[in-house]
């Protein structure tokens, strides 16, 4: 008998796209899943149980094995650095991680960068040999350069509309982001058949495999 797969699903932006992809792959996922405010949704017909989590927590649930698999953006994976299998690029929720600043930006003596992704930002600037002070913020990152907290920000850009509305420009794209299917190290072995089957079904319906890291340079 097939075992139930516990799936950590990100609440918000990615949820509907991921659920849609599951449906395309032939899994009976009801349309109103996220709206019900339930945190755990049992989907016996699909052989799954959804755990609705804050996106940034998805890799944590999966690493600890309370969820067998999860769907999460590459941005979170790079920031959180959890020990999980990264099985598939789902090609959904495509956007990019970028450096953003005011149009007339000039490098100052003490450069400050505000971001929700301090690990990603520090690693990037370190690798570029640039000396910057990274400031962690939890939201409304665009505020930082406008009011002088930081001279640049590192953030996710989807359409760039928010930036333009606030008079900011995208200076450089660091890497492309798409959502990934991740798996717990033990579940990947103990429920290998179920996970492999799901991978195969998803792979068949993924339209645009992601461009992945360093995409902007090519």
């Amino acid at each position, binding site marked *: 008998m097939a075992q139930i797969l516990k799936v950590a699903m990100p609440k918000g932006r990615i949820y509907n796209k991921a659920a849609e992809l599951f449906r395309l792959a032939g899994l009976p996922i009801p349309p109103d899943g996220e709206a019900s405010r339930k945190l755990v949704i049992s989907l016996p017909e699909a052989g799954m149980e959804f755990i609705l989590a804050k996106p940034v927590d998805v890799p944590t649930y999966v690493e600890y*094995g309370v969820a067998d698999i999860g769907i999460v953006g590459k941005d979170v994976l790079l920031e959180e650095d959890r020990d999980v299998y990264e099985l*598939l690029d789902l090609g959904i929720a495509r956007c990019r991680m970028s450096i953003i600043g005011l149009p007339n930006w000039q490098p100052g003596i003490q450069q400050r960068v505000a971001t929700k992704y301090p690990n990603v930002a520090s690693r990037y600037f370190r690798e570029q040999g640039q000396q910057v002070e990274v400031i962690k913020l939890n939201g409304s990152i665009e505020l930082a350069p406008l009011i002088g907290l930081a001279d640049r920000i590192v953030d996710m850009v989807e359409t760039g509309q928010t930036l333009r509305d606030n008079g900011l420009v995208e200076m450089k794209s660091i890497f492309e982001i798409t959502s990934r299917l991740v798996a717990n*190290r*033990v579940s990947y072995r103990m429920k290998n058949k179920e996970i*492999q089957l799901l991978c195969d079904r998803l792979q068949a319906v993924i339209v645009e495999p992601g461009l992945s890291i360093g995409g902007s340079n090519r």
Partner: protein
Amino acid sequence: MSKPKGFEKPTGVRDYLPHAVAKLRKIENDVLHCMSRWGYRQIMTPTLEYYDTVGVASSTSDQKLYKLLNNRGQALVLRSEMTAPVARVVSSLLKDEPLPLRLSYHANVFRAIEAEAGREAEFFQTGVELVGDDSPEADAEVVALAISSLQAAGVKSFKIAMGHVGFLNGLFQEALPGLPEAQEDLKSHLLSRDYVSFRESIRRLNLSDAQKNELNGLLRLRGGKEICGQALELSDHPLARVSIEHLCKVWEVLVSYGVSQHVMIDLTMIGDFSYYTGMTFEGYASELGFPVCSGGRYDNLLQQFGRPIPSTGFSLKTNRILDGVTGAIEAEELPILIQYDIPRRKEGLQEAMRLRLEGHSVITRLATGPEDLKMVKRLTTDTIEAEGERYGEIYTFVSFVSEHG
């Protein structure tokens, strides 16, 4: 940093209270007994080692080693695993012992930085090393012993995944001749379990579509013995073929042990330790989110200590098993309470010594007067309650009342 509160302890270490210790000791004893029944003799090595010898050889990444200086300014480490210390002993104190050597250990090991659960700074490993035998029989023996040890520890549902480092090395050398960086790149993606980047790297390589498909197909090489046959078709490289043939033979021995149903072959497995040179394996229990054992062949490690001999082994993460094994432990025998007053003290304490020699656990207490005797309530034939504490039996040696209270 503020001064820690009196009861605080450093991040990543833990206290074990009596009921947890009882369970942990039972697991540890059962596993060590199991290992001794396979002819493995237990050794102990020091907690401290030199950074430049065992520290470097252990292949734990430098930032995860606990380093300290001794009073002469020499760099020391708290051992981060047991394979390197055992290799040091085998190359020195045991260098004249006939091979093969079968050694087991149970020890606490240390890793720096790691703070969260499942990533402790101090944890317990129970394991074996089989030194001086490079045959498939030896590799199969440690895998079969790992399975027996997991069963002895009370882990019910588990799986072992087994791979071979040599196969990957051979396959990549053949597919990407003269491109050591590209080979390392692919291996590093497998090591970090990032299949997306692995496929992406292959996509960017200058290879024919057929070759790319073959390399991507690696991610599906998982299952029983049939995988060996499929793998042989993938590569003509001598190293890859020798590796697969070795793995096939290990499998056959495991079939003879009658344990192959617990084992799956996964050729994308790269042992987390860089000293592995051949077969590697990992064990998973369905109750636990983290692997519970890992092992493999390390034929070059002992060379670093001046005795180049092939070896293979594994270790169980004993305290993780403790977290996962939920089975009830046998109830401990309740202690006997002996109460006495000063005039009859000798009698009471002598009786306590006699009972202890018989193997009972005895607690003694001085009663200063009749009002100081414990109020006693018999619950069952072998359980007596006295003011909240439970005892197997209570004997009273006092001059003011008769013997049984």
